[in-house]
């Protein structure tokens, strides 16, 4: 079964695959940087915690969930 051309093919797959993975992640990194720049420029978060009303609601909610998340985080270990 060990044909040379299959090995060659799989090598090409590797080239293609790693290229696409890197391409994807590099693009992702650039988008993350761009959005971080834009968001922090146009929607700067006020210094104190309960600044924007939306974030505020979210913060409250986050606190309420905090107990759950803290407890669940132990369980997260086993998931991937």
């Amino acid at each position, binding site marked *: *079964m*060990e044909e040379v051309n*299959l*090995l060659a*093919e*799989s*090598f090409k*797959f*590797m080239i*293609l*695959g*790693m290229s*696409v*993975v*890197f*391409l*994807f*992640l*590099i*693009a*992702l*990194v650039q*988008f*993350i*940087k761009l*959005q*971080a720049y834009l*968001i*922090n420029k146009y*929607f700067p*978060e006020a210094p104190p915690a309960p600044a924007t009303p*939306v*974030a505020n*609601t*979210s913060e409250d*909610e*986050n606190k309420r*969930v905090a107990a*759950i998340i803290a407890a*669940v985080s132990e369980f*997260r*270990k*086993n*998931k*991937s």
Partner: protein
Amino acid sequence: MKIKQFLISLFFVLFALTSVVQAGGHPAPATDAVAEESAEEKVYQPKSISELMGSFWETTGINAIIDIDDGEMTAEPAGPSAERPMTWFESSLGRIIMIILVFILFYLAIAKNFEPLLLIPIAFGGLLANIPLAHMGGEHGMLGVIYNMGIANEFFPLLIFMGVGAMTDFGPLLANPKTAILGGAAQFGIFGSLIGAVAMGFGLQEASAISIIGGADGPTSIFIANRLAPDMLGAIAVAAYSYMALVPVIQPPIMRALTNKAERQIKMGVQRKVHRLEKLIFPIVVIMLSMLILPESTPLIGAFAFGNFAKESGVVDRLSDTMQNSLINIVTIFLGLGVGSKLAADKFLVLETMGIMIIGLIAFSAGTAMGVLMAKVMNKFSDEPINPLIGAAGVSAVPMSARVVSKVGSEERPGNVLLMHAMGPNVAGVIGSAVAAGVLLSIFK
């Protein structure tokens, strides 16, 4: 006492009404009964008590295991047309080997805490699948029903991924985005082991299915195995979860071999605070990117991004909570049992399984090594120092791998907490594996 009266009057009313009415009514039930009975008598031949005991003996599992030539069929969720007679090995010794293997998995899950949430349902499914005569993995068996409900159509792995998405915090990745590259490098575990699998004699499609173990991600492995090599699903899933559980054993020696002490002691800075909007928009960015570059990866990435978006939106907490709890738990039970049905001796005990186990180990090691090496390179060219250890977290195996990194790091330099820095490559590795999976699917489309 009142209850008794109730019951008696209920009886009386029912009896009076039905008997009176049936007389002039529909006579079908009676004829039905007769017809059914005659059908029965055709099927059921009176037997002496010893004949009865004898024919009962034929249905025992002991007999099924001892009797070599009983022509039992394999159980296939696709129905009888996909079945074939078992070999004597599969129907006797093979079962016993598999049951022993199941017990080993139970031991590892319970005593060693190796991914018990998946290994216990999988192993129990394997136990049930190896019961003689019960045909539980067949079209009408419990495991087969589950398999057809959510594994044959890849629904369950996607639901798990959705729940995992709802549990994942991309904050560390957003705070230090370039560490995402490490999650790409570690995907060499997939493609490197693909070459290895081909060298070992597997066909291209099978080799691709096996190599996905290097993605170190359960749902992705099951999704791809089901598409490219469904016969190997059991072995691939068991290998993937076993090696994910073995990350604390596999990774540290490789990490130490490829780095020097100075590198391992590098301290990394405090992460910046991430804006809520960044977290909210991130899943959308990921799904848009995968739509543009690689639509084949969108089932996996889409489910993942949906879960994460639901969580970060902050307005559908009851849905996000359900994804993270009751829904993912229910699906985990079913997914495990369904995958376990592929641990039937006739499916698992083939030579390929050995190869899958070996390639899986290679894949994990290669991914770890390449992640660490890439981190070393990045450390050279980066302004901020990067501890090469965090490259190992790029294989994903979330969050076990990031913890291993943190543990090794703090052993080398007490007080050096790398956990948050390792979470970046760690979650990037999940995305990277899904992308790699998409590439493999697009090749064989």
